Every structure is written in structure tokens, then in C-alpha cells.
């Protein structure tokens, strides 16, 4: 593992027009890790991801990719090391799966070299890897949400970058497809050795699939570390304003958030103690 972080944000200030979303943020992504950024709506997590992927220029401070300023590196060069999948990307109507995934090769191509054998090999492999090879000639807009997301991930995979940023890759997917996509992300990390940073809404899935959680609130990082350290009821109260208990996920052993909600407030602790006291009959 490298000692220099793959991605390093230093004293970052990010803004949309006059609206400053993130101010004075420092953040490092280590090589070969899966990091999930969590936080309530509007906390600036997508903004941070867009800045890490140089989709949004920093107002102050900068992002380093392998120790070099990302905004001073030619963007095509960056695109060979860093792949970004934006939130809810849209494909033009009628575009085939193969053509979309082939777009991922753009940083490796030129106008006179648009389908080299390297391109073809990378696309073929990405498609087989995500299980989308049989859909290669289908139009993307005729696929289901989960399949579509696999196609977009294939595109980033075909790009052949070491570092991959995913902005809410599971949005609009049902639970089964969320798990499906995240299994794919896990394989990106374990089998293909990619460094992944993703923004996720589902805390339990984030805890399960990431080695490192970053919790954000109001544009600042509140907690950061392994899921067991970050995902605590104190953090949930502070960051999400959520009254919840954290138990152990019976499947993965990672923390599992159980929100309390108004109806069970007060009585839940006693009930829980009672049930553990009685034990399984």
C-alpha cells in the first residue's frame, strides 16, 4: 500500500455561486480502500465527491491525485487514473450498451484511434465482469434500473482507472439491486484492486461494504474511520439528528442502525432488556 494518499483534499472550500457548501475540509483516501461518505441530505457529500473528481473546481484549497494537483494535471491524464460515475447519469435515447461502455475508453482514444484492440478488450472484459455482455446490443433505455446501473459501472470499469468515484450508485434501486450493485463494488476492490470512494444513503449497506466511513454534516467531516468506530448512536444523533440504536449485523458483523422513531421512544429500552432477559424459548 502506498504511503501517499491516492486522493488528498487540502483546506477545500466548495461553493455553488454565492452558496458555500464546504469550507476548510481536509480529507485523504488511502490506496486500495473502499470509502463511503455518509451524511444527511444537503451536507455536501456529493459536492465533495464532485470536487474529488474535478467536476467542481475548488474555490480555495485543492485536491491532490497521487500527490499532484488535480486541477493542474491535464484532464485526459487524470481520466486515465480516476474514473467518476456521477449521480443519476443519463444516456441518449437509443444508445446501445456496448456503445455506452465504449465511451469509457475516451481518455485512451483520439479521433483517428476510436476502437483499438485495447479498447475492445477492455470493453469486452468490463461487460463480462458485470454480467452485461449478453445485453451488449440492447438500447440502454430498454433496460431495468439495476441493469442500467451495471452498464454505467461497466463504463467506469472500461476506463481502466485505479481510483473510482461513485455518487450514490444505488439511488432509485430496490434493495435487491442495491445489494447487487454493491457486491459489484466490493469485487472491484477485492478482485480488481481498485480504490473506491462512494456516496451512499443507506447507512447499513455503507457499514457493510466500506472499510472506511466518512460522516459529514454542514459541509464538514464529523467522524471518520472504520464503520465500528464511526457508526454509533452518538454520531447518529449528532449528524442525522436521529434517535437510533446500533446493533451488530447478524450477517456481516458490521454495525446495524435501528432507528427508534416516535412510536417506540421511551419504551424500547425496557422491551429490549426484557426480551434479552427472557431469551429464546
Amino acid at each position, binding site marked *: 500500500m502506498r504511503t501517499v494518499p491516492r486522493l488528498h483534499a487540502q483546506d477545500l472550500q466548495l461553493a*455553488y*455561486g454565492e452558496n458555500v457548501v464546504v469550507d476548510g475540509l481536509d480529507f485523504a483516501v488511502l490506496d486500495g480502500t473502499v470509502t463511503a461518505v455518509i451524511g444527511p441530505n444537503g451536507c455536501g457529500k456529493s459536492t465533495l465527491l*464532485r470536487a474529488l*473528481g474535478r*467536476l467542481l473546481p475548488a474555490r480555495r484549497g485543492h485536491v491532490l491525485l497521487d500527490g499532484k494537483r488535480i486541477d493542474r494535471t*491535464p*484532464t*485526459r*491524464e*487524470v*481520466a*486515465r487514473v*480516476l474514473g*467518476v*460515475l*456521477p449521480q443519476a*447519469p*443519463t*444516456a*441518449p*435515447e*437509443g*444508445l*446501445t450498451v*456496448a*456503445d*455506452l*461502455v*465504449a*465511451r*469509457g475508453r*475516451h*481518455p485512451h*482514444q*483520439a*479521433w*483517428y*484511434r*476510436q*476502437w*483499438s*484492440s*485495447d*479498447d*475492445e*478488450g*477492455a*470493453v*469486452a*472484459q468490463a*461487460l*463480462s465482469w458485470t454480467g452485461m*455482455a449478453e445485453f*451488449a*446490443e440492447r*438500447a440502454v433505455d430498454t433496460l431495468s434500473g439495476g441493469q442500467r446501473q451495471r452498464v454505467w459501472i461497466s463504463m467506469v470499469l472500461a476506463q*481502466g482507472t485505479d481510483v473510482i468515484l461513485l455518487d450514490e450508485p444505488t439511488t432509485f434501486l430496490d434493495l435487491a439491486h442495491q445489494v447487487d450493485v454493491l457486491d459489484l463494488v466490493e469485487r472491484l476492490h477485492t*478482485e*480488481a*484492486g481498485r480504490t473506491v470512494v462512494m456516496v451512499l444513503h443507506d447507512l447499513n449497506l455503507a457499514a457493510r461494504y466500506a472499510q472506511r466511513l466518512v460522516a459529514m454534516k454542514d459541509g464538514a467531516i464529523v467522524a471518520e474511520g472504520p464503520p465500528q468506530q464511526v457508526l454509533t448512536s452518538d454520531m447518529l444523533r449528532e449528524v442525522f439528528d436521529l434517535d437510533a440504536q446500533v446493533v451488530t449485523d447478524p450477517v456481516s458483523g458490521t454495525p446495524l442502525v435501528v432507528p427508534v422513531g416516535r412510536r417506540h421512544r421511551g419504551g424500547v429500552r425496557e422491551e429490549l432488556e426484557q426480551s434479552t432477559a427472557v431469551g429464546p424459548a
Partner: protein
Amino acid sequence: MSPSELLTRPTGSVAGRLPVRYRGLSGVWRPRMVLVTACGVGLTVLMAAVNIGRGDFPISVLEVLAVLVGGGDSAQQFIVLELRLPRSLTAVLVGSALGLSGAITQAVARNPLASPDILGVTAGASAAAVVLIVLGGSSAAVASVGSLVGLPIAALVGGLVTAALVYGLAWRNGIEGYRLVLVGVGIGAVAAAITSWMLVYAEINDAARATVWLTGSLNARGWEHVVPVGIALALLVPIGLLLTFALGALQMGDDTARGLGVHVDRARSALLLTAVGLAAVATASAGPIGFVALVVPQICLRMIGAARPPLLASAVYGALLILGSDLVARTMLPVELPVGIITAIIGAPYLIWMLARGRRGART
């Protein structure tokens, strides 16, 4: 699959993307696109030959083709090369400029309505040209110089200024197709109002000249009209086709394109500038011939079954449409009409149909 496998050069083939490779060059073999484009080229040559042959002194298609490759008698050579070829050549050049321009703007805006005529570019170019005709028309010297040098330049400047205005007003942290179209329609209306005002203000002779020009006409086009538009196209068409490379990534939306290493704003500005240049040059040469830039790219897209308007095919079929319209305008009716009227008759129902399809048709 192990990490090392992904790091070594992977091999394999992808369904639907057959490679064509020669030394360092490579591309995807798309038989349907090649077939449709080749058919278009053949039909355009044929249509040009028919168009050249028809007239007070009819010449058969074969004879026209013979003259074009260097044969024929001297009378035929004179009639074809000096009298009639410039008109058809202007039609071809103007048509391909409009088709290519429309394909680029529709692809960049990801909106089938976003053609230079809808975006106000043509209206802006016309307004500038009419201002020149009306204000400069009082002296004969200005008029003759103006129509050859001044008109194209005025139209070009008018088109570029309008496009810059539309782009500037529609830009809000990026360009969204619908906003571009709406702002374009608005600016186009202002330009049309300027044109009307000029026509009211003008001397009757200037107004008549401007009106004929405004319907888009290929009447009495000589080599002096062909040369400027030919030079402009010789520059702009290759630039436009080179820029297509970035267009593929731009199609995926701004963020994805940036992630793929495209300078989005730079690439889009260059593409739009090329498209506006093409539309303005075409307008300067033959007046505002409507609907070609709107209709042709969408027809080609459907013929080829592509996900974005094909540039080369749009250029070819743009030429074909204008040639065909010119033939109809010249010969099929008792009076000779300006070609712009025929393209409008074909194009207007298409526009209504597309608007009636509503959001689905204009989906980004």
C-alpha cells in the same frame, strides 16, 4: 478474474462493434451508416444531374454526367459548367452546411428541436443581412459590393452575435437543451422583429430585394457565389468532423464527459461556433432556407438507427433535400418559387408533428 488479469492487456470482442483497423487508425464498422451515407451521395449526384439537365434547353442526365467528367460538346459544356452547375453546387454546399450545422447543434444540446433555425441563428443572420440590404441599398456601388462581400459577412456576424447572445442568456452552470431552445426562440423573435421593421422602413425596391432574399433562393447563383461558401465549407466541415470525437463523450452529460477527460465548455463552444459558422455561411449564400437543419439530422438518425444525429449523413442528405426542393421549385410548378418555400412546406408539418409528440420527442 484476478487483479493481474485486469492489469494485463485484456482481449475479447464486443457484439455490435466490429472493428476496422489499419496501422494506428481504428474505428467501428457501422454498415448501416456507411450504406445510408453512400446511397445519399449517389442520390445527390443523380439529383444534381437531373437538376442541371432541366431547363429551357434540356440535357439528359447521362449527358450532364458526361460533361461533368470532361465530355460533351461545347454548347453543353457552356450551359452545364457556366450556367447551371453553380446553382446546383450552391444547393449542395448550402444543404450540407445546414444539415451538418443542425446535426451538431441537436447533438450538443441533446434536443431534436435545437437547430440553428429554432435557436435564432438563422433569424439573426437574416436580420443583419436585411439591415445591410436596406441601409446600404441606397447607393448602387454599395449594393453590388454589399451583395457579394458584405452580405455574407453581415450574415456571419449577425449569426455569431445572435448565437453568443442565446448561449450567454441560456448558460446557467451549464447548458440545458430546453432552456437553450426557449431562449433561442425568444431571441429569434427579436431578430425577426428587426427584420420586419427594416422591411417597413425600407425603400420599396430594397424591400423587394430583401423579401426575395428572405425566402431563401438559389436563383441566378454563379461561380462568384459558389467560391466563398465553398472555401468556408472546406474549412468548417473538417473541423466539425474532427470535433465529433468529443461529441461522443458530451452526449453522456456534462459531468460524465468531464469525468472522461473532456474540456466540456471548450469542446461545446468549439462545436457550437462551427455549427453557427456553417449556418451563417449557408444563410449568407442562399438566404434563410428554413427547416433543412431541423429535419434532416432527425431523418438521418432514424434511417441509421443511431443514438445521435449522424454528422456526415446529415450533410449529404441536407444537400439532397435542397437539390430536390430546388428541382420542385423550378420545374414542377407553373411559377418558379424560391427554394425556401418548398423546404418550409416539407418542414413545417414535421415540426408540428414533433411538437405534438411532446416531451417524448424532445427527450434529452
